[in-house]
């Protein structure tokens, strides 16, 4: 069942999923997941050398692996980032859920800010974040996409703007607001 396909297959899937073909999107997601898995395994092998991947690198490398370095339409590249970001989100959340099932109430915690370390007790519950993101998605799909691309996909403002075909200013505004919205939803008082 090694349905690894090849570069153009992924391009085709990108085009089809861009046109709303859910089946293609799902297949693509699995391809991306497979690629990410390989990249992560590779990265772990290089752990000793201190090499760790930043999210953008991760997605870019997955892109190169699956699509190649040849020119492709920006639409396809954007679609790829969107799928990759969504995939990473699913991976993380599923993992959190699984860990929770195994370890009872120990959701994976991720720091919100590099400057705020875990010992300051400021960690993000990914499952809760996922729920909040779903809520946001229902209210403003665009903002949810922005969060997904920037937070899970690691895209910069410019890239996010191009991926969503909106202005960088809008991305910045959405990002700022959505971030506050999500965090506020996660607050103990919310």
């Amino acid at each position, binding site marked *: *069942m*090694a*349905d*690894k*396909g*090849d570069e*153009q*297959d992924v*391009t085709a899937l990108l085009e*089809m999923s861009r*046109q709303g*073909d859910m*089946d293609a999107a*799902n*297949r693509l997601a699995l*391809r991306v*997941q*497979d690629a990410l*898995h390989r*990249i*992560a*395994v590779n990265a*772990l092998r290089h752990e000793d050398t201190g090499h*760790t991947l*930043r*999210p953008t690198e*991760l997605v870019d490398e997955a892109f190169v692996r699956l699509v190649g370095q*040849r020119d*492709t*339409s920006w639409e396809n590249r954007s679609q790829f980032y969107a799928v990759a970001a969504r995939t*990473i989100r699913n*991976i*993380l959340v599923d993992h959190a*859920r*699984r860990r929770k099932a195994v370890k009872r109430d120990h959701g994976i915690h*991720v*720091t*919100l*800010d*590099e*400057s*705020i370390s875990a010992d300051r007790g400021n960690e*993000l519950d990914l499952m809760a974040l996922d729920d909040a993101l779903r*809520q946001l998605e229902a*209210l*403003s799909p665009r903002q949810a996409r922005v969060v997904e691309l*920037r937070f*899970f996909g*690691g895209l910069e403002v410019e890239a996010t703007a191009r991926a969503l075909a909106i202005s960088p200013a809008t991305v910045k*505004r959405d*990002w*700022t*607001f959505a*971030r*506050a*919205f999500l*965090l506020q939803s996660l*607050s103990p*008082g*919310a």
Partner: protein
Amino acid sequence: MPGRLPHDQLTPARLAEMQAAFERALALEGTDRERYLGHLAESDGALASRVRALLAAHERTGSGFVSPLGHRTALPLDGTTDRWIGARVGAYVISRLVGAGGMGTVYEATRADDQYRHRVAIKLLGQHAGNEATIQRFRQERQILATLNHPNIASLLDGGVTDDGQPWFAMEYIEGEPITRWCDARRMPLAARLQLFQQVCSAVQYAHQSLVVHRDLKPGNILVTAAGAVKLLDFGIAKLMPEALAADPDDTPLTRTGVRAYTPEYASPEQVRGDPVGTRSDVYALGVVLFELLAGRRPLELHGKSAAEAERVVTEVTPQRPSAALDGPRAAVLGERSLARARQQVEGDLDAVVLMALRKEPERRYGSAQDLADDLSSHAGGRPVAARPEGFRYRFGKLVRRRRVEAAALVLIAVAIVAGMVGVSRQARAAERERALAMEVTDFLTTMLGAANPGSFGRDVKVREVLDSASKRADALAGRPGFEAEIRQVIAGTWLALGEFDAAEGQYRRALEALAREEPGGGQATATALSRLSMALEFTGEYAAADTVLRAATAMYDRFGYASADAQTDHFDSRGRIQVRLGNMAAARPFFERAVDVQRRISPPNDSSLANLYANLGMVTSELGRNAEAETLLVAAVAAARRAHGDVHPLVAAILSPLASVQERAGRMAQADTTFLAALEMRRTLLGEEHPDFAWTMFNYADHLLVVKRYAEAALWCRRVLALRGRTLQDAHPAVSTAMSVLGRALGQMDSLPEGERWLRESLAVRRAEYPPGHFLISSAESILGDHLTLAGKFQQAETLLLTSERALVVARGEQAPIIQDARGRIVRLYEKWGKPDEAAKWRARLTPPDTAAAPG
């Protein structure tokens, strides 16, 4: 930190208000922000509370909202993210995710109770579980798989519903690579690629006959296992054809599917347009795959194109010829030394076949996957393909090449053809790898022959010297096992033609050793060499060994397919012959019939092959007691042999002999005698007097002379046969014991009873030594000896032998075999001579009248 948030309903509009207020507040500092929020609280208290909460949250985020992925431990991509991993589904435990099918997710799993850890692939709907249409399609895939049972299609093993209500099914786990990658990684030569592709066609044809259209054929769904077997996967978007199609699955298109789930690069024009899709859409996809196997890329460039543009390209742009798409690096991947050589092989036939499969209009493509495969067989067999008009030059070139390949086993003929090849069109030289090899081989041997004694062919002993020296030269070819194997097989074939069977066997075995290096896992070339080795074993009378070798060849052909219809025919023919030699006439017949079927489908017919097959089928039919039918077949065989080779040819001679036997059985003795003499004369001229085949004809004639009571002549011919015993004829050769038998009987009729009995006992001893217990030839020898003992008045000994052998013969050959009549006739004779008329009458009643249809007219 603000208090509890208001309970107002959040809507998209409300969120927009919140964002506007939040941004406005954020833009303000200190007291300005407080003043704004105060105003807001007066008009909309709930909104103000929310904005305050958002601002507080914003403060906590700091400048960044850093992705979790900055930390290497944060992304748990170790395959443990899936809740199904480790879960039990039916009798299986899921071990890992392997990919996505048309719909749903595929996992690797093992049977929980399986001590051998048998792997299966389990397909689940996964996150699509809630979608009714998806469930429908999932069920359909399961249903489709359940109807398909073919060695080249991943089969359904099990199915059910999980504890939480998800449908699932288990399939054969296929560990393989996409066919294109598999071939390229191994630098598979063209012919091997085409053979693999024919397996694909066979699977697709089977699906079509099962009323299933795959609709998503592409390399990713056509895997090749490490063992080299093709497996078709992913019937996820396959469609069951309406039952109305049962009458003619090829011509009635499918209804519109609505679901545009396919891979554009492999989708036919009708599929891209959203028009009805049918079996010919799969033929198109096969065409794309074939193009890719040859050229290393796809016929149409769709990369980076929008859907609309891709649709235009697929429906309007005519693809280039695959040969034109080849380049230098690709030629190397095809195992060719130069681009020119690679082009030569693809140009012409293969270009035409691929482009016919890729035609825009479904009705102008091949009607079925089988037609496509058949055309590739024609190409492989050197016959004209249907995909192009048959101009004279084209046919001519084809036939010349074809003869050359056929002739590869006979140096003399091959040399003649090579000489005639000079000046033949370029098309004739654009040969496949095998043909190029055959050419190289004949060149090699031509040179050898020329060096030994120019112009001296025929029965000249020099040919043997040449073969010996060629064999020594072949020792130096160890670095090119494929070539070495070919050379040795040509040498072996020549030894075979010269009747030097042990030398032939030796060369075939060395060819197989070379092939073991060339094709470590076996393959078509190995299967063919095995099949040829069986002939050497057959001619030395080692039937059981030949049968074993042939079964091994069959197993290998089953795995790798036949190189051509001719290879398939030859193989069935060999299997049938060995069954005959082993005395299993009824088992032999189906093999010959299958071989005839394969040959009859070929156009133009290969008369040489048909002649051979008709003859063998005729002989078996005769042995089964259907004399009239047998004669018809043998007459047809002689006619075909003459069409193929003219009046004087070893094949014509070989068929004349059994024809004469059938004529004799029909009671037309004069005609039979003429036929025998013609066969003898032809064989003497062609083969020389020491050739086992000539000996066999001599024996046949002697047997005939015995029947027509010309005992002295019969004895004379038998002694000639036996003069070769220990020289070109070994005891295992059936001619030895049968000639002894005929000689003994002839002597018995000439009142030389003691000498006759000695020969008959010797014949029985040879047969007991050479054949397995219970073999009909042993019983036959017993029966004949019994008859002789009747003549000698040794009735009791005779009775024991005659009755025992009659029972054994009925068991071995069945009531209808002519040999049973002979055996019973002898029993009647015994009792008459012995003075037991009641016993005689009882046995006479068990004689059936002869085949009336074959009675003399």
